[in-house]
């Protein structure tokens, strides 16, 4: 029993000692790969992912049918289109989970995550500024402990910001769940924020991604059976979690910018109040 309901009711603490509305530790870095256009590394608890963005650039030679079908879907018809195509490639390392499992290129779950990410980012990045080009996002999963899709979305957002690709706003994601299973008709079920692997296995959960500070949901994935009455609470908690994640990612980007200003790498710029109008 991963989440002993009796204990939870008494202490309101989850298996890893968090309360219902607490995120796990999020640690993020950008510019981890000097040679890439944009790169990031993100940890959400023990889920660790790396992301590298290449582009926007001229699309290379068209890949085989399998590769194109897996990654594409986002920006439409590739090289000749008026918008950049967002191609996402996810590699899940064999050592990333507890049981060593080899996932091939054609793994259905990976493909689904690829197309979710590709569609989400294609809607948020300003792809119309880069006609006939392609944005390659390659993600590597180093360690899995639940909320994998959310971590992938957050890492991809950070890497895209680092690559200087214009976007409407940050896309941040996190998961939400409910304290009791679908079958247990528990009226007092609490929504939970940021599920870890154990909780994800046993409890109903969903992944939600929102656009910046707003409540606009840009991606919502639910793969488990959940009672409709609990959905609203889960969604509300999830959206709130996304805002917290946004703050954390924003701090990471700002810290990098401040470092660059202090080192004199970039100018401090001219703001609206810096000088009078001519």
């Amino acid at each position, binding site marked *: 029993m991963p989440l002993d309901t009796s*204990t939870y009711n*008494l*202490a*309101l603490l989850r298996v890893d000692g968090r*309360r219902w*509305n*607490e*995120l*796990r*530790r*999020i*640690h*993020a870095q950008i*510019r981890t790969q*000097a040679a890439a256009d*944009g790169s990031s590394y993100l940890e959400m608890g023990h889920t660790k992912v790396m992301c590298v963005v290449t582009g*926007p*650039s*001229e699309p290379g030679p068209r890949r085989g049918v399998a590769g194109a079908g897996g990654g594409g879907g986002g920006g439409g018809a590739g090289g000749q289109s008026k918008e950049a195509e967002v191609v996402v490639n996810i590699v899940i390392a064999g050592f990333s989970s507890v049981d060593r499992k080899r996932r091939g290129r054609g793994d259905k779950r990976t493909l689904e995550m690829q197309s979710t990410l590709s569609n989400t980012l294609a809607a948020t990045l*300003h792809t119309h500024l*880069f*006609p*006939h*080009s392609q944005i390659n996002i390659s993600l590597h999963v180093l360690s899995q402990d639940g909320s994998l899709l959310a971590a992938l979305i957050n890492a991809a957002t950070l890497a895209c*910001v*680092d*690559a*200087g690709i*214009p*976007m*409407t*706003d*940050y896309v941040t994601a996190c998961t939400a769940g409910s304290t009791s299973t679908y079958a247990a008709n528990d009226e007092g079920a609490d929504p939970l924020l940021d599920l870890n692997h154990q909780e994800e296995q046993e409890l109903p959960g969903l992944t939600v991604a929102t656009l*910046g*500070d707003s409540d606009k949901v840009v991606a919502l994935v639910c793969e488990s059976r959940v009672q409709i009455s609990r959905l609203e609470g889960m969604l509300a908690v999830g959206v709130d979690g996304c805002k*917290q994640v946004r703050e*954390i*990612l*924003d*701090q*990471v980007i*700002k*810290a*990098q*910018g*401040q470092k660059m*200003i*202090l*080192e*004199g*790498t*970039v*100018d*401090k*710029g*001219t*703001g*609206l109040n810096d000088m009078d*109008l*001519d």
Partner: protein
Amino acid sequence: MPITILPPKFSHPPPPPQDISDSDSDLSSDDGGAHLDFASLGLPNRKPNPANNPLFTNLVTPGTLITPDPQWMRGHGTYIPPHTTHITSSLAGIITRTNKLISVSPLRARYTPEVGDLVVGRIVEVQAKRWRVDVGSVQLASLPLSAINLPGGILRKRTETDELQIRTFFAEGDLVVAEVQQLFQDGGAVLHTRSLKYGKLRNGLFAAVSGVGGGSGVVRSRRQVWTMEGQNGGGKMDVILGVNGYVWISKHVEQVAKELEQKHMGITNMEENVSAGVYSSQNDPIDSDTMREITRLRGVVTALVENGCRVDEDMVIRGYAEACEMAMLSETGPEDIYLGGQRGEELTRALRGN
């Protein structure tokens, strides 16, 4: 006696001081974890709140509202959400204002070509009447056959024969130095090499660093090409800093000047007398001292970029002098050309100190 576990009392302590410079983003939520109040502990708060630093007021991240005032015009790196007049940033970068135009220059981005830029590029594709050149931009640039100096004397018309032997001028993988002549609406660039300064690159070493577009790297400056004297027995070296961040460092060859002397020709018809030698892919012999100095110079350029410095003529020349001094102090003498890691940091610190 049975143990009773009491439910925690939810309290809302004031949010911890936002110490951004700490760069550790561990504050997962406001009502959890230990709240360290530096003031109450009697410890000095190490750094002032960076949000109040006037240096950082122009730093924006995607989705930041810049101004709701409709009097401003939006430029690059900004957008206006539908049904509003709010100019919003779409990049992480620095606000720059030119009169009424507001734009955001990114912290880092790919090179965006502008007319007149000196670029170094690599030929990736040969087509019927043009080459496609990688200049590190969003799209490949194109170099039409009509925009190069054809060999064989007078400024002649390009013929079908030239089209057939297009590969004899530039083939795939060749490096060229060129100028951006024209831009397309979608950001694609057209290059030309109609000058003796431009053309195929030989006798040297290529380095790709980040270019104009944000952050460290090559900056647009008055002089992008110069010749400098090599130390430690090295000969003269040519340095070409492409605005796109591609750098070419080569041995200096006085070929053109020599040819002119032989033929006793004026400077007016110099460009008409380009021989086929310009399109040769054969390197001249380079002595090992010059090779070593070329490598050292490349080490300087990469060290500058790694440590967030601008790369321009002044920095490279000073950096090279500094690197030579550092090499003299080391055990192996001038043979020591390593400028990575700590030595690179040392080098840039010395340059910044001046």
